[in-house]
């Protein structure tokens, strides 16, 4: 297969970037999209040029590193897969492919296709956890969880934090990511004690990071490699409303020593 690539090249965070065109003559349909980039980079290195920087790690769709906007769609044309699981058989001989990084003010470009997604980490730090005293491991089935709740929690927990929802959203909103994390814990008994504090702090952090609002376009759900539903966003909003209306001042307790 002959493939023409238009790839975003940007030397550093402050540098001006532009699309560069490369032609690959012998692309196998069995290659993954990232393997095609490996071939491209080998050719670039052999020619003494700077290889394209792109982030990748597990290459099996669970780490959420591979972030590429392919032909204007986050993670490319295959539904429910990350870029690493996209294979060249999804394209035709002679195709032109545009590859760009995720674009959002909250995701500054580090180099070429690599963006800094620590904004998502800071949203998690703001409340995407449960507090538990450490000690001996408890019995696995000590806390009973109804099957539907466990399933709903697992659907949301499938989020790999790749940022495709932000990339695909015309508003660059991180609502699907934040909502998935809130739903994941909110469906489980272990998530209940901090449920309403969590939604307030995570939503606040989402705003602080400079993501846009949710217009319910639905683009995030379509781009999500884990097919997380925008139903989670409704749940986040519902919890946010409840939390706002029932909020009490936090007790300030001072301990001696």
């Amino acid at each position, binding site marked *: 297969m002959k493939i023409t690539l*238009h790839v*975003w090249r940007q030397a550093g965070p402050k540098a001006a970037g532009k*699309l560069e065109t490369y032609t690959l003559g012998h692309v196998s349909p069995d290659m993954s999209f990232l393997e095609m980039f490996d071939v491209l980079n080998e050719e670039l290195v052999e020619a003494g040029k700077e290889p394209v920087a792109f982030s990748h790690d597990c290459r099996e769709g669970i780490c959420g590193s591979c972030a590429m*906007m392919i*032909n*204007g*769609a986050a993670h490319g044309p295959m539904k429910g897969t990350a870029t690493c699981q996209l294979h060249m058989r999804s394209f035709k001989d002679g195709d032109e492919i*545009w590859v*760009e990084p995720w*674009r*959002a*003010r*909250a995701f500054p470009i580090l180099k070429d296709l690599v963006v800094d997604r620590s904004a998502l980490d800071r949203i998690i730090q703001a409340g995407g956890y449960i507090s538990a005293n450490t000690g001996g491991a408890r019995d696995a089935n000590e806390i009973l969880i109804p099957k539907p709740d466990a399933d*709903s929690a697992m659907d949301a927990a499938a989020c790999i934090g790749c940022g495709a929802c932000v990339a*695909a959203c*015309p*508003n*660059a*909103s991180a609502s699907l990511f934040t909502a998935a994390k809130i739903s994941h814990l909110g469906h489980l008994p272990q998530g209940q004690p901090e449920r309403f504090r969590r939604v307030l702090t995570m*939503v*606040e952090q*989402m*705003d602080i990071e*400079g*993501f*846009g*609002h*949710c*217009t*319910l*376009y*639905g*683009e995030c*759900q*379509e*781009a999500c490699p884990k097919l997380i*539903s*925008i*139903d989670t*966003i*409704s*749940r*986040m*909003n*519902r*919890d*946010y*409303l409840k939390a*706002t209306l029932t*909020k009490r001042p936090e007790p300030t307790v001072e301990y001696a020593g």
Partner: protein
Amino acid sequence: MQLVRNFWQSQIGKKVVMAVTGLILVGFVVGHMVGNLQVFQSAAKLNAYGYFLKHTVGGALWAVRGVLLASVILHVVAAVQLTRQKQAARPSGQGYQKYEPQISTFASRTIRWGGFLLLAFIVFHILHFTTLTIYPDYSPTDVYNNVVKGFQIPWVTAFYVLAMGALALHLFHGAWSSLRTLGLSRPAARPTARPIVTALAGLVALGFAVVPLAVFFGAVQPAAPEQGIPAEALEASALQQSAGAPAGASTTAPTSTLAGH
């Protein structure tokens, strides 16, 4: 107060304000549309309805108008602020060279411009039929003949029908997303399906648009003036008209002796 401020500062809070005010306005347009359809019953029926709203409902009408005006203002202010924030979230200089919408609807992508069109329409519509500023020769009581006169003008009919198209699109996305924003929708296998809202948007827009179209194509004809209005009310309004408004403002022009009182 702190609660209100925090709520308004968050983007979800602003969206909730937009959703609640939007649903208030959806309720209003449904009622307004159904009221309008009385034009097909008789001139007397429509005029009596207008008289009922203005005089029998009376002070409560101003309360309703106040709520509607506040809703429109909050809806627009929140929309403008959220749009600015979203523009900052992906500045235009840093956007994609190539972007392909996957499942977002035309209605959702045009909701902001459609909203501005509707705002312009609302202002025009109030100046046209409520304050009668655009055509001062309309009668303040003869709603029926005002409607007929209004929609005999091609561009007015065209503008009204265009605005109702924008209303259909606005409701198709807005009414559906309002319920989701408020977290009222139930989890669904296909969360983007919205049969009830689609029917609502279509019916409301059709119910509104059929009136100008019926007048324009002659299905609704002019009637004898001032049907359905109590005689004493006509006299009172004539008195007011001649005292305040320029000469010839009313079709039931009072005598000049009355104006002197």
